[in-house]
């Protein structure tokens, strides 16, 4: 079991691990060359923990290949409302994230790293941590970014560091090509960097002791909803949905479905054995996203819950692209009308039409994520949507 597992214990006291405690637990920052770090990461099979699950070594290589000096951005914006793991990690073990940023910078030939956070506690924790490391050869700074859903989208993050608003930009060029100040920029989620810091110390083989061949290592998940002990847990990649719920104190009510992956995620009903990892969830057309599991109790209306999430995503649009501004508002409105029993079959037909028109047409993937989520809701709660068309709501039902 990886060391991040202990973060939970520290949040109870609200104390971050000091640099001395961090040093005692993990030892000094390893003196590895950039190539060695990349090679070890390659062997570790680490994938990004921010949501896209992109192979970390591949991303590092792409940034290294740039001709200009690169930069590192640690992404701790965590805009997902159902995710708490990055805030927790930054509050509990900030030095592990700073170590990861320093090592990543070394790996891509950067001289500086920017740690981006969106809330006060994380900001203070990182500031305190940086103050404890005055002798660091790497220039590491912390930046406060907007606390919105799209703020952590990588081009939006780079845009903010360049002095712009928290809105995505038209890509390519992608941040790894032209990012902060026009330089090749490595944007990595803070949990990914914490794993990187451990892989650099303990090695790829150590990392691969947990998880599956396809998805090695451990991952932080935020389990919430109808469970007895909602919170952040570290699990081996590939842990079943059932075991994750058990870890969170078990279910606190009869359950009808799970939302896996957050607002861009997928509803899953019945399949409690589904492995929580990139490849396991691909089979369901889903993803683990930023490691989010929400348990939906029986008797709660899935149509209503889904409509609320689509409305949230519509309101969180950066407001730049027509298909996102008008499209998401349209599907949100139709979903709300269905949820409140004010719509007929036509609303379902309109949603189908718009869910075909919208995807792939924004500057970022915000509209795509919203459509994927709604499609999954229509699939899993089809019966409920149809009941709503008939003016009924029969949410109460046993777990399939």
């Amino acid at each position, binding site marked *: 079991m990886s060391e991040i597992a202990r973060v939970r214990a520290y949040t109870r006291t609200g104390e971050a691990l000091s640099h001395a405690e961090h040093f005692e637990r993990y030892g000094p920052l390893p003196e590895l060359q950039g190539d060695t770090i990349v090679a070890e990461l390659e062997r570790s099979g680490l994938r990004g923990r921010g949501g896209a699950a992109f192979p970390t070594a591949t991303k590092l290589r792409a940034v290294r290949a740039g001709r200009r000096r690169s930069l590192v951005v640690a992404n701790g914006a965590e805009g997902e409302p159902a995710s708490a793991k990055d805030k927790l990690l930054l509050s509990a073990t900030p030095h592990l994230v700073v170590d990861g940023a320093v090592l990543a910078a070394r790996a891509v030939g950067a001289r500086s790293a920017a740690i981006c956070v969106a809330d006060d506690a994380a900001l203070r924790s990182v500031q305190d941590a940086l103050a404890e490391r005055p002798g660091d050869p790497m220039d590491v700074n912390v930046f406060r970014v907007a606390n919105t859903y799209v703020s952590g989208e990588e081009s939006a993050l780079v845009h903010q560091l360049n002095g712009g608003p928290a809105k995505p*930009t*038209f890509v390519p060029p992608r941040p790894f090509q032209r990012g902060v100040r026009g330089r090749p920029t490595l944007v990595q989620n803070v949990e990914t960097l914490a794993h990187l810091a451990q892989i650099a110390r303990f090695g790829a083989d150590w990392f691969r002791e947990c998880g599956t061949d396809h998805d090695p290592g451990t991952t932080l998940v935020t389990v919430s909803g109808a469970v007895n002990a909602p919170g952040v847990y570290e699990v081996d990649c590939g842990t079943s949905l059932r075991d994750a719920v058990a870890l969170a104190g078990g279910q606190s009510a009869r359950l009808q479905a799970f939302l896996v992956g957050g607002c861009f995620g997928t509803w899953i009903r019945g399949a409690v054995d589904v492995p929580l990892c990139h490849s396991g969830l691909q089979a369901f057309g889903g993803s683990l996203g930023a490691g989010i599991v929400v348990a939906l109790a029986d008797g709660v209306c899935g149509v209503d819950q889904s409509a609320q999430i689509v409305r949230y995503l519509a309101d969180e649009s950066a407001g*730049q*692209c*027509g*298909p*996102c501004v*008008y*499209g998401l508002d*349209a599907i949100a409105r139709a979903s709300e009308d269905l949820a409140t029993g004010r719509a007929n079959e036509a609303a379902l037909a309109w949603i189908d*039409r*718009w869910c075909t*028109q*919208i995807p792939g*047409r*924004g*500057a970022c993937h915000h509209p795509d994520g919203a459509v994927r989520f709604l499609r999954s809701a229509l699939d899993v709660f089809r019966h409920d949507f149809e009941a709503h068309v008939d003016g009924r709501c029969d949410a109460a039902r046993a777990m399939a």
Partner: protein
Amino acid sequence: MSVHVRVNPIACEAHGLCAELLPELITLDDWGYPIVDPGPVPAHLIDHARRAAAACPTLAVLLEERLGVRPERSR
């Protein structure tokens, strides 16, 4: 080498001229924003595609040249 039409959705303000000038590859969604055929622009439409790009008031229509593997000739 192939040419593809791409729209910068941030710049696009749904004037709709592109769909008028290049209806073979561009249609409009329910709000007037272009839906573009992602495939290569056929040779006989290249001039029309250039005209559509030039006519866009917000310069949101882009023609991109992509290096691609030439599809094998069918027999």
